């Protein structure tokens, strides 16, 4: 009897030790990463259609620089950039979808602000596009600067955006009375402005450039030169999973740094034998760059091979589509822009 009891206790002890080990091992691995690998796809929240950032073609293929962030994450954690499930979200829905766990990455031209980062249970992981709010008007109005805005002007925009707040600050500081007409969906804003309901349409300048291509007659509209706000747009993750946060952050950083070192989707494989150790680290040929995330060593190589570096993504989605051919601030710091990411080492 006692003999059996002893055996039983040791069995329990063994089970307990085993459990302790597994929970410790699991604690290092991100819960979101585990779920993602189990599901076999990355759940990504995008816009309802903003050319250049996230836009679906007729057969449902998503393209854009925001989309590429999600594809990079998929390439890193699943090995295939196509294993992404895109969920189109309105500005209003986006944060709830993320905090409630419906999506795991939000790449939806979202402005990084203090209150969003601190209050809502979100964490911004970086900036993939430096933007600013501007105004679009009809060419025929003869307006060429915001200084010509007069009392009574009506402005169409989206609800649930920083745009709505910036617009108020702008008009108030200039003492101009205005009529805000705020819609839930971007398409409705464009339709209303295009029909003549509003004198001006205001949102991020990249958004204005992209939506202009959707107008009945794009040449009839101009974007005014003034920028009234800072809008650093970037991907967002849920607060509380530090490893997942790091994976998304460094997926984006990898794309930007790859451009800095001249690594492209075409030459990535041959870079493995490069003399530069920094380049070798970026293509998984040196160091243990994936272990801390619970990933293998070639996660960054896959991103570059399957999605390309930031420059390739920008060219493919924004420059070649005629939205914003000039990279402006979204150029590498070495070439006069402000894209500067911490080193991957």
């Amino acid at each position: 009897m006692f003999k059996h009891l002893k055996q039983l206790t040791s069995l329990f002890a063994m089970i307990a030790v085993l459990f302790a080990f597994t929970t410790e091992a699991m604690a290092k691995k991100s819960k979101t990463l585990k779920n993602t690998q189990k599901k076999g796809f990355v759940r990504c929240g995008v816009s309802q259609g903003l050319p250049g950032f996230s836009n679906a073609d007729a057969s449902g293929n998503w393209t854009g620089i925001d989309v590429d962030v999600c594809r990079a994450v998929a390439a890193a954690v699943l090995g295939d950039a196509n294993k992404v499930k895109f969920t189109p979200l309105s500005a209003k829905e986006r944060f709830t979808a993320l905090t409630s766990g419906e999506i795991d990455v939000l790449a939806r031209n979202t402005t990084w602000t203090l209150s969003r980062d601190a209050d809502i249970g979100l964490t911004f992981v970086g900036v993939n596009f430096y933007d600013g709010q501007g105004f679009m008007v009809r060419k025929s109005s003869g307006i060429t600067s915001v200084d010509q805005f007069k009392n009574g002007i009506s402005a169409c925009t989206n609800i649930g955006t920083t745009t709505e707040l910036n617009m108020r600050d702008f008009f108030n500081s200039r003492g101009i009375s205005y009529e805000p007409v705020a819609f839930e969906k971007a398409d409705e804003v464009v339709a209303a402005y295009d029909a003549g309901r509003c004198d001006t349409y205001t949102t991020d300048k990249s958004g204005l450039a992209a939506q202009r291509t959707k107008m009945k007659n794009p040449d009839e509209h101009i974007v005014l030169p003034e920028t009234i706000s800072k809008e650093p747009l970037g991907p967002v993750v849920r607060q509380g999973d530090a490893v997942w946060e790091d994976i998304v952050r460094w997926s984006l950083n990898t794309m930007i740094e790859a451009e800095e070192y001249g690594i492209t989707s075409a030459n990535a494989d041959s870079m493995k034998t490069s003399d530069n150790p920094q380049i070798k680290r970026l293509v998984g040929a040196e160091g243990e760059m994936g272990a801390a995330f619970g990933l293998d060593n070639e996660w960054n190589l896959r991103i570059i091979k399957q999605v390309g570096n930031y420059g390739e993504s920008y060219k493919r989605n924004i420059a070649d589509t005629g939205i914003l051919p000039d990279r402006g601030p979204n150029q590498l710091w070495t070439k006069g822009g402000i894209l500067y990411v911490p080193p991957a080492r």
Partner: protein
Amino acid sequence: MNNKIKRILPQLLTILFVVFVFGFFTINAQVNMDNRGIDFGFGFLSQEASFDMQFTLLDYDGQDSYLWAYVVALLNTLLVSFLGIIFCTILGVVIGVARLSQNFLIKNSAAWYVEFFRNIPLLLQIFFWYYAALRALPLPENAQPWFGVTYMTIKGYYIPSMIWENLNVFMSCLIAAIVAIIFIRVYARKIQEKEGKQLPVLYISLALITILPLLSFLIGGVTLDFEMPVLKQLAQTSFIFEGGIALPPELIALVLALSLYTSTFVAECVRAGIQGISKGQKEAAASVGLTPNQILKLVIMPQALRIIIPPTTNQYLNLTKNSSLAAAIAYPDLVLVFAGTALMQTGKAIEIVGITMLTYLSISLAIAALMNWYNKRIEIKEK
């Protein structure tokens, strides 16, 4: 004893079940919010809203609190519901009666109207009135006046605003007239019940309500001026009207769509009510010498209303809840402003959606209570 347990046990289980379900959801929400670092609380209501609204009934500015933004947005919802209920009732009664007309053309047009408007989804109708119908309107600079002084444009309907002097004198006269009319009606009823004599109540009422306010202008020192909307140029091709009152196209489209859609259901309620009164009632009334007007007013309608009111209440409730579709066309109602912008800016999803749900529930219960009270008043009093 056994019976008692049998009676109580199911009730107890139901209560336990409800408590369990609510408890589960509350704890679940709490745990998840804790995990994600989201606080629960209503402190945000006193913070500065910092966004503007296109159309408000009371003074509102971005510096006001979220609470005030809620109140102002709620008033916008109530305004649309109120206007919608008034118009759909008028239209519904007319169409409902028209469906019973002997005239082939009137009867069939009414039937077509009902079938057409009630079978197209409401959201589609709202989009139609906003994007198709209102968009066909001219820009302000091309607008021709309606009735000489009002302008219907793509940016809204501009009407003159009234500037009163000694408005309180005018209002007192108006109230006095209404009180007098109520007294005369009561008196006329007494006379009729006592002596069988009928007084021309309608003419006396009309005379009172025109003459008394008119007197306030002539000797009460009341003046009324109109401020006309005047075209103003903003830029080479951009104009607006200034002065007067501007009704935004979003409000017009929403009220139009809601009242046209709901009026079809009200019309059917009215038709059902009138048809529910047996023919014998009408014939009996005619045989005691009542005129057709009197038959409708004194015999048919009081009975028909009992059938009409309960289902019509449902339609009023539907209209109020449907008014939340305003969000689709930028009319700043409760859903667009509070459950939209405010939710987004604060991230307080559970609190704001909860408040919004409670608000709609309260509005609906209030309308239902009002209609029930009216229904009680007109129902048959059995002695």
